């Protein structure tokens, strides 16, 4: 059985896989990083989004063996060691950008890639289009869009901290 060495959230793991083993299966079943969810398993819902070298990808549509040699970041790798949330996580909490929470890890990972690829900032339309690969069946997306806009301001230095969402 092939062995792969995967760098996940800054830690190197060597695991045995089959060639056909998906990245999301290794993350969840071998490394027990169950924050990465499997929603549809058909590349559509985005619940399994992780970062490969900073790019958001659907972990259900990449073989684990293909991810060898890349830096993988999952939802578990975002918060600081002392538990301080990433600004995107904090914004999702502050703006109540979730209800059941199933899509949230993928939403957060996609949102961070989206913000990082738009250093000049994002319009509401760009945020909505940027979430095309992530499906949420609870929220109607409005609070997710608000959270991403607020987090973008923090991540890109236009705001020192999140403005109050209580309005």
């Amino acid at each position, binding site marked *: 059985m092939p062995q792969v060495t995967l760098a996940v959230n800054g830690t190197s793991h060597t695991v045995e896989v089959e060639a056909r083993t998906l990245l999301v299966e290794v993350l969840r079943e071998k490394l027990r990083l169950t924050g990465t969810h499997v929603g549809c398993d058909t*590349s559509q819902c*985005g619940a399994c989004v992780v970062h490969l070298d900073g790019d*958001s990808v659907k972990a259900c549509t990449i*073989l684990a063996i293909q991810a060898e040699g890349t830096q993988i970041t999952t939802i578990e790798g975002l918060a600081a060691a002392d538990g301080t949330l990433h600004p995107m996580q904090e914004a999702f909490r502050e703006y109540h950008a979730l209800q059941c929470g199933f899509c949230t890890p993928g939403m957060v990972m996609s949102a961070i890639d989206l913000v990082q690829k738009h250093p000049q900032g994002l319009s509401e339309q760009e945020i909505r289009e940027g979430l*095309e690969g992530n499906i949420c069946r609870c929220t109607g997306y409005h609070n997710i869009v608000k959270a991403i806009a607020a987090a973008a301001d923090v991540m890109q230095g236009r705001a020192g901290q999140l403005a109050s969402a209580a309005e």
Partner: protein
Amino acid sequence: MYDFTYHKPASVADAVAILAADPDAKPISGGMTLLPALKHRLNRPSALVDLSGIAELRGIRQDGGALVIGAMVKHYEVATDSQVMAAIPALARMASTIGDTQVRNRGTIGGSLANNDPAADYPAAALALRATLITDRRRISADDFFLGMFTTALEPDELLVAVSFPVPQKAGYAKLRNPASRYAMAGVFVAQGPQGVGVGVNGAGPCAFRQAEMEAALSAAWSVESVAAVKQSPDELNSDIHGSAEYRANLVTVMAKRAVADAG
């Protein structure tokens, strides 16, 4: 998914040698179509030959009056590359509408062209721009490359290395997406290039094709009105739960008008 042997060659020559030695081996680029197909057990390759480790398949360069894009260049790169945006902005805009962000971060131009999905965007652009498909052993004009649904002129062990697009004076693209799948119901790429006017249609038929009457009309007068007067025949167009052949035929004219407007 059935299991398979995995190879990751470092050169085109090594990849071709593996494919030549094993007729049931298949190359994989971004895998955005192949992996979902394998999950459904629609295909059972004995081996996958991962092309992501081959440096000679990457990169975007200008070559005379053409823009040459490596087969393993991702949709996201085409959409955001400064050379593409300067030379053929319509191609960059088109690439920015393929799939979703996560597909564009993995999927490649070579994979899309070699797969030849009827609804894929790049085949229409390749036809309209009179692209040349460069393989490990020959150069194939776009007109000779796309043979039918999911079928191209590539031999089983032949690899697409790059695609060369003559830089046009102007080009534009428009498509109507299925609201659920987001695949093109019909798309039209128009270009006024060094070899004349090209009009490529995707999504509407079983294989992308050139619309000769629209090309003649735009050659006579480049305007929205020119293509508006051309009616696409529904014969041999796709008809399914998403739309009839007649609906798609009408869409071809509507998308052609929008594509000409997009080209300016």
